[in-house]
């Protein structure tokens, strides 16, 4: 049975956040992001869409880990499958718009695969700490498969992906070659996925997920079929991660097996751990911030930066369970006497 959490200061603030203020914060962020290309141009606009996609990937884990309490090192596996789906769809020219086909297929692939694996394991009551290693194994397996099926996937060296276009039937098309076009194509998609996930976690379904995270035994005893809910959460996060992968494939125009590597699998967990797993916005922004910072510092001091990242991760696990967002919340809570 779940232990009673000690009433240390890390436990409560990590959970308490004002739903209303998060919507406002998200809205403000969206507006700022939408206006950004008008004041800034060049490299940031070019590179941000990729980080926004990473942010989406981080959100998929945020929902699964932060809200349901299921840690997964397997988001990278779904991401990679989505990326290769995009690559292959463009390569084989499936359908009138292979990009759309790939995006749709990625949602199905990710969702169905995750549902199958999730159901297989959760229905038997496989505990979460063993589930973690299974997801790690999944990432390794996907990596191995993409390396070995080289005639299809290009193997170890990866594969180039043609960028998709946005077609609107008889109304013409928009080719995504200019940075600004790409930016304004990716931003609303990410915003929409954020909104969708937020609605899900705020619903009754989401409340049950939180209950499962807090005390699964109690949830079962109240009549909730927790394996169903966990499978559903895993399926949703798998679908989002896979979808993000398809977008990534089109944007980066290159996919390789390293997307499923242990290293990348870990990075995703680090984004969410540092950003803050208790809110989707924190996961999203955490993903964007840590990924971009990581990339930037990686070019300057690759070895030492990774080491620092590892240490910050440990700190986030040991002390700051709420990540950066948790720290911010606690400072905000100290200022106002609103809560409690």
């Amino acid at each position, binding site marked *: 049975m779940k232990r009673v959490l000690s009433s240390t200061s890390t436990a409560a603030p990590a*959970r308490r956040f004002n739903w209303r203020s998060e919507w406002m914060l998200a809205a403000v962020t969206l507006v700022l992001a939408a206006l950004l290309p008008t004041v800034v141009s060049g490299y940031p606009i070019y590179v941000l869409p990729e980080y926004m996609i990473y942010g989406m990937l981080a959100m998929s884990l945020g929902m699964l880990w932060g809200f349901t309490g299921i840690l997964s090192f397997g988001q990278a596996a779904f991401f990679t499958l989505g990326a290769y789906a995009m690559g292959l769809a463009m390569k084989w020219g499936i359908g009138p718009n292979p990009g759309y086909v790939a995006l749709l297929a990625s949602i199905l692939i990710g969702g169905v695969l995750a549902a199958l694996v999730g159901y297989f394991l959760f229905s038997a009551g496989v505990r979460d700490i063993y589930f973690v290693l299974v997801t790690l194994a999944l990432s390794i397996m996907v990596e191995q498969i993409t390396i070995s099926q080289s005639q299809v996937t290009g193997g170890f060296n990866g594969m180039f992906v043609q960028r998709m276009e946005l077609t609107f039937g008889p109304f013409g098309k928009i080719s995504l070659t200019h940075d600004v076009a790409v930016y304004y194509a990716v931003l609303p998609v990410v915003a929409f996925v954020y909104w969708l996930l937020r609605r899900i976690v705020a619903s009754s379904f989401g409340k049950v997920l939180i209950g499962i995270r807090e*005390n699964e035994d109690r949830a079962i005893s*109240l009549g909730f079929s927790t394996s169903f809910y966990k499978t559903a959460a895993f399926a949703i996060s798998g679908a989002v991660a896979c979808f993000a992968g398809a977008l990534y494939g089109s944007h980066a125009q290159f996919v390789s097996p390293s997307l499923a590597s242990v290293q990348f699998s870990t990075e995703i967990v680090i984004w969410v751990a540092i950003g803050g797993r208790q809110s989707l916005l924190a996961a999203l922004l955490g993903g964007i911030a840590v990924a971009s910072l990581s990339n930037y510092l990686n070019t300057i001091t690759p070895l030492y930066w990774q080491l620092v990242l590892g240490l910050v991760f440990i700190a986030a696990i040991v002390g700051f369970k709420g990540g950066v967002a948790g720290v911010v919340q606690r400072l905000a809570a100290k200022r106002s006497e609103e809560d409690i």
Partner: protein
Amino acid sequence: MSEFLEVRGLTKRFRGLIANDRIDFSLASGALRCVIGPNGAGKTTFISMISGHLEPSAGTIRFKGRDITGLSLVRRARIGISRKFQTPTVFDNLTVMENLELAALGKPGAATARQSRIEEVIEITRLSNLARRPAFTLSHGQRQWLEVGLLLANRAELLLLDEPTAGMTSEETHATAELLHNLSDRFKLTVIIIEHDINFIRDLRSPVTVLHLGRILMEGTFDEVSRDEQVRNVYLGTA
């Protein structure tokens, strides 16, 4: 006319140890029953088999006329059999209100019905002024009451309470007995309570079943049981 809860020949064997031995037990709807017995008598095992946490080695359990012996834990919770664990098992990081809301979601129904139920429960468990507090900030006794509240919000019909007054002060214990009487009247509940606290059992004024070495030793009122020679011997040294 079948009883609300009917247990026949319920047996649980663990590797050579017989924890429950062919127990026959029945309860009418709306009844309150205390189950007592020295440590190791098999009380928790008995409750666990009714709640679905343990599979019986033999015997049948009928609930509202239906054989539920093979029914899973989740399904039993859904048909109204709810259990309160020995250590308070609530959603610690959620507020009292959120705890109750989640419990209420466990049964189908309109949001308004759920809301009114929650309001009734929070009032009767005297947690109204603590509604927005996270559960882990409550005192031990309050957390026990919250857990009972969860079962009520969950529209449980058969409550299985495992030592609900463990760790409580004597005032809290008195209050709990009163609470259970109120609940029983208000919500038409059937309750089985495992207890050790003599004062609490006396306050409850309910029939008592005494378990010993996995079998029912005797059943009767509190006075009958407390005067019985055999029961006294079994409890020798335990007051």
